[in-house]
């Protein structure tokens, strides 16, 4: 079989939200009318994908509707339906498609900063009231670098409390 014949299949596998058995990545889409409401991880701009198993940690990421996440876990069969049992997850992109930074929001001596999960300490400027109310909490941010008189800081252009 020629490689060109395999190409569509390869693309399909690579782009699938469930490309690997123990993890998947895609858009969080909250679909269905409860009690059948479910969290589905889809490829961007698609509406069907891999449903998360109900009644588990899936509810945590319902607040991340329209964000892109990576989920670790494994396939499971509930009744006659296959679903993905979520173990843990990371947030990758905001609804705007920008890279998300996750960490704990802290304040010291009047300066807000994010202790990011990746180990960075990111000082923040122009912190909006809504974000200020999340001090001490884990948050999801979309940040932009800013040059200020007191050095490099970051402006949070999108924020959400980590679920």
């Amino acid at each position, binding site marked *: 079989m020629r490689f060109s014949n395999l190409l569509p299949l390869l693309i399909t596998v690579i782009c699938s939200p469930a490309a690997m058995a123990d993890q998947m990545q895609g*858009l969080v*889409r*909250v*679909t*269905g*009318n*409860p*009690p*059948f*409401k*479910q969290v589905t991880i889809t490829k*961007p*701009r698609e*509406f*069907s994908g891999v449903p998360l198993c*109900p*009644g*588990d940690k*899936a*509810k945590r990421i*319902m*607040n991340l*509707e*329209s964000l892109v996440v990576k989920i670790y876990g494994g396939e499971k069969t509930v*009744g*006659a*339906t296959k679903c993905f049992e979520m173990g843990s997850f990371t947030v990758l992109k*905001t*609804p*705007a*498609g*920008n890279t998300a930074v996750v960490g704990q929001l802290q304040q010291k001596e009047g300066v807000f900063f994010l202790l990011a999960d990746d180990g960075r300490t990111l000082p923040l400027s122009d912190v*909006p*009231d*809504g*974000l200020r109310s999340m001090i001490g909490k884990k948050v999801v941010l*979309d940040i*932009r670098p800013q040059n200020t008189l007191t050095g490099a800081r970051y402006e*949070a*252009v*999108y*924020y*959400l409390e980590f679920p």
Partner: protein
Amino acid sequence: MSRPASPIAVYRLVFSLVIYAGFGACKKDSAKTEVAQDVNSCDFATAGQGCVVKATNDTVTIDLSRGAIGQEFVIAPFILGDPNTVSGSLKSRSFNFKMSVSSGAALRLLPDMGRDPDIDVSDDSRMGVVRDHDKRTLANHFDPNKGLNQEPWFWALAERLDKEASSKSGFVGGESDSELTSFYVNMAKHRSSGFAPDFNLSDGNCPVNTIAVPKSDGITTESVPLVGNYSDPDGKFCIAYISNPVTIPDKKAIESAASKIVRVFSSAIYADNFPTKGNYKFRPIFAFVDVSDEDVWDQNTALNLAGVFVSYTSLAAGNPIIYVAADFTKVTSFGESAQTEVLKGQFYSVMAHELQHAILHYYRMNAAGTAVVNGESVSIDEGLAHYMEDLFGYGADGFKFWALPFLQGYTDGVTPFLVGSNDYGDGVSAPLARSAAHTLLYYLASQKGGVSFDKNGEPSGGDGLKFVKDVVKSSTLTGPANLAQQFGGDWAITVGNFLGSLALDNVSVGGTVASKFTVQAPVEAVTNLGGKTGQTYGMRFNNYAELTTHQSGDYGSLKNDPAVPNPMSYYMTAPLHVSVTNPADKIIFQCDCGGDRKNIAASVVRIK
């Protein structure tokens, strides 16, 4: 009727742009105006005209140079994002619209043009129905498989209802301040007991002697005896009388109403016989029960409902089951001690409303009838159900309960004009959420051609009806993407025109209002489910009074200080009322929207 207890926040505002040039020569003649009225032309030739100005990158620049001193506009900036990925307003609300004027001209406030404070709505009545429907929402959305892991909005809504019950003497008194919440917590903790509905089904799947009703644990059921039953000879529906009906005591009338609902849904609206999917047969069972009778119905206040379609019990039974209160005076949230005409109307409209939920549920199920594969977002699902009530002649009855609160509230920069699935009950009250969708659906259906009614006062067709049907039957898309595809065209312009219609529909502005800013005139020749003729389908957007707009100060100073009425999300707006004093200036909105630049726009309509 009394005024609403909650005062309506009337913001007002204006600012003026300083001017120098004459602009009469720039005006279009009326003939050109007529030609341009339904295209996205920003000539603003006469009051009642307008357009949607889309952003370049993240900035909307509104050029009023064709305007003239003294003209007034309502401008509503918004962002939709990508309809394929953003389902409505989201939990995060961090967007700001920074407003500026090109010259930094000084502003002044225009005279107050606030909303008429004498709104003819009884707050108690409205809240009563709202509360009842919220409770039905809880019952509909409780997923026993999730145990205590219900969605966050679910618990938030339960707690809000508990607070409401404890603070309002007109509502049913719970034994504690958290009775509703406790009820569902109790149900959630008993999830492992399993659900085993008990039906004795006759030929055609109609219950004859007993039927299963939900118990307070929310999982198990109790088999209760029937005092009567009816099997539609055509096999279209069943009626199970757990209790004898009181609000509408005439069983023949109930059978007639059920028959009409099913017939109209399956013929004029959906043109579908709803074939069996696997073991799921779409033969709805309308079960009437005295919700105050502890022998046949759980007495927890959470189940003191006017009606409810419970999906999981329906799937287990293999038929959609719609439980309806036999006596609406026993639905304590209504607060009525007599069988008023309103209650009688609600009795029937609840039947239609809940059946619409069952129909959407049916269409979105897989072929095996075992699971929903592309469920609709909650607000659109509810909006569709309210829309369907209108088709049966309850438009005027429902307006003050549902559309009115939305129309009064959407300008606050907090209430979305379309809600994401995750927002339901989370910062946005359920009535506002569903009414936003209801109102939007009515606009879209109107623009597609509206709905026609036959000589019998029944919906008979119309491209607007087809549009709604296509939305419900969508086999692929959901949410805004579904609406956008079924409607066609540019979604941002469509939504912007909807916002324009909220400002202009049925308003006297001294000129012809472009049809894109109007909705179908209410049809007042509908025969409702009680056989009463001359009832209403539809609404007018402005019949709640004038538009509330925001003061320029709400957006911060015009020196580009970023400040908005509230941090916003997708599908939110805070309209401004602008008076032109200098057409040479441009009004600029920069959307600081988390880097999202998709579908940023502003609706601009001339009102004077």
